[in-house]
C-alpha cells in the first residue's frame, strides 16, 4: 500500500466515520446536573406520593359505591 492510498483512506475514514461521530458528540442540553445531584428522586417521590394519594382516593370512592349498591334492593324483589 503506497502513501497516497493510505492518505485517501484516512481522509475517507475522517469523512464518513469520524465526522458523524464528532457531529453527534456535540452536547445537547439535558438536565444532567439535576440528575447527578440526585434531586430527580425528589421530583419522582413527590409525583409518586400524589399519584398514590389519588389512587387511594379513587379506591375509597369505589368501596363507598359498592356499599351503597349493596344497600339497594336487587332488581328482582
Amino acid at each position, binding site marked *: 500500500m503506497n502513501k497516497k492510498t493510505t492518505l485517501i483512506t484516512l481522509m475517507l475514514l475522517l469523512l464518513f466515520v469520524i465526522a458523524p461521530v464528532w457531529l453527534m458528540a456535540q452536547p445537547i442540553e439535558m438536565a444532567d446536573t439535576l440528575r447527578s445531584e440526585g434531586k430527580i428522586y425528589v421530583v419522582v417521590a413527590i409525583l409518586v406520593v400524589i*399519584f398514590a394519594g389519588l*389512587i387511594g382516593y379513587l379506591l375509597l370512592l369505589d368501596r363507598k359505591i359498592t356499599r351503597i*349498591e349493596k344497600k339497594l*334492593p336487587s332488581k328482582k324483589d
Partner: protein
Amino acid sequence: MKTWLKVLATLLLLYTIVAGFLFDVPRLNIVNETIRALYFHVPMWFGMVVLFLVSTVYSIQYLRSPSIEKDVYAVEFANTGLLLGLLGIVTGMIWANYTWGSPWHGDPKQNGAAISLLVYLAYFVLRGSVENEDQRARLSAVYNIFAFAAMIPLIFVIPRMTSSMHPGSGGNPGFNMYDLDSKMRMVFYPAVAGWILLGVWIASLRIRVRLIDEKIQNLENE
C-alpha cells in the same frame, strides 16, 4: 371492573412515573428533556380515542336492543373520554408553547383533536335538549355513531396527508412514532395501557353511580 385490572392500572402508572423520569431518553434538539412528556401527553389521546370507541360500541348495541344500561355506559364512557381529551389538549398546549413557540399552532392534529372534542360537546348538548328518555337515548346513540364515523377521516386520514408539526411527518426535528427509541417503547406502551385502564376505571365508577341513581328513581316511582 375487575380488581386485578385496577391493580394493574396502578402498577403500570407507578412504573410510568418512576421509569418515565429516571430512564435514559434520546438526546434530541429542541425537545430536550421535555421528550418525557410523551409518556403523559400522548396516552391522553390514546385513552380518549379508546373510550370514545367503547362509547360508540355501546351505542351500536343500544340500537340493536335498547336498554337503559347500555345508554348509561355510552354516556359515561363519552364523558370520561372528554375528560382525557381536555387534559390532552391542555398538556399539548403547554408542550407546544415550549417547543413550537405558541400554544395554538394550527397544527392539523391539534385541530382534529379540538374538533373531536366539539363533537362530543355537541353530543351532550343534544342529550340536554331532548326530554323523552327513550328518544334521547336513541337520538344520541345515532349521533354518536354518525359522529364517530365522520371523525375517523379527521383524526386518522387528514393529519397524515398534510404536513404536521407533530413528529413523524414533514421532516421536523424530534422522534418518529415508528422508530421510537426501544428504551422509550418500554415505558411508552405500558404508559398507554395504564392511562387507558385508569380512564376505564373512572368511567366504571361513574356508570355505577348513574345506575344507582336510576334504581332509586325506579323505587320512588313505585
